């Protein structure tokens, strides 16, 4: 993978942590980084094309939006992983779904409009897949941080 320039790294830090909620956000960022707005827009497009930036927008809070979310896991036989993972993937509200290195091998997060709806979805997934699903809603949040420090990252 080609390395990111120091401007790109500084830009990524700004884009993650100090994105101006303003009519012209990129003009403000250009002033801060002492470059042109066009350079900023081109750098962002480049990093989107490379897949470093997934999107730019709002990260909404499930709880404040009135939604219920939970982490689920199940134990699936090797020869059924594709099938069960596929069933889970199709479900609206499943945002992350991973195969992990443990006897509980499929792990997914489910966000639904209420606890009752989540329960109903899990019950239906259980009966469709014939696999028992363990649901582990959070009882306490210590940290949710989704930004990654870039300017101290060398060799990328």
């Amino acid at each position, binding site marked *: 993978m080609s390395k990111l320039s120091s401007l790109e790294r500084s830009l990524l830090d700004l884009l993650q942590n100090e994105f101006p909620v303003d*009519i012209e956000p990129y003009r403000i960022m250009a002033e801060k980084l002492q470059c042109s707005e066009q350079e900023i827009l081109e750098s962002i497009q480049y990093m989107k094309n490379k897949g470093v930036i997934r999107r730019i927008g709002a990260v*909404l809070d499930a709880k404040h939006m009135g939604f219920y979310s939970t982490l689920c896991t199940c134990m699936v036989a090797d020869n059924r992983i594709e099938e069960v993972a596929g069933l889970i993937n199709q479900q609206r509200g499943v945002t992350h779904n*991973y195969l992990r290195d443990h006897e509980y091998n499929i792990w997914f997060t489910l966000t639904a409009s209420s606890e009752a709806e989540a329960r109903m979805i899990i019950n239906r997934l259980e009966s469709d897949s014939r696999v028992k699903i363990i649901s582990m809603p959070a009882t306490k949040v210590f940290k949710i941080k989704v930004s990654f420090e870039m300017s101290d990252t060398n060799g990328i």
Partner: protein
Amino acid sequence: MEYDDTDRKILKIVQGDIDLESRPYKKLAQEIGISEEEIITKIKNLQSKGLIRRFGAVLRHQKAGYKVNAMTAWKVPLEEAEAAGNTMAGYKQISHCYLREVHPEFDYNLFAMIHVKSNEELSNLLGDISKSTSIKDYIVLNSIREFKKQSMQYIE
């Protein structure tokens, strides 16, 4: 509901990827028939109410140089969970840390997502966290495959 119909139209757009334009809200403003200034005010309002947790770029951490992304689960007595969770929250390599409902089948209750650049960094960090929290019993749930990863579409 904590948001009105105009908020809903704004959230529907900003929950995804906003236009990569000098004035990213221009089109949205025309569509819903309010000014860009009003959109900015509404977004700031949604931020202060907590519905928008963060505004900015969402990265693909793997492509941003964080190659090792491990879900870790720790077994901690409930009365010690608060202190351990707060300690974990202080590590910049930990992005998410939650206490979760325990199950007899899977009774690890404290979950931490770790993002680092190498396996060596991971094992050093795990040793350090184990020491600083005095939790000896933990497992690392490495991801083998990603079936799905996307931002929640709260508004359809």
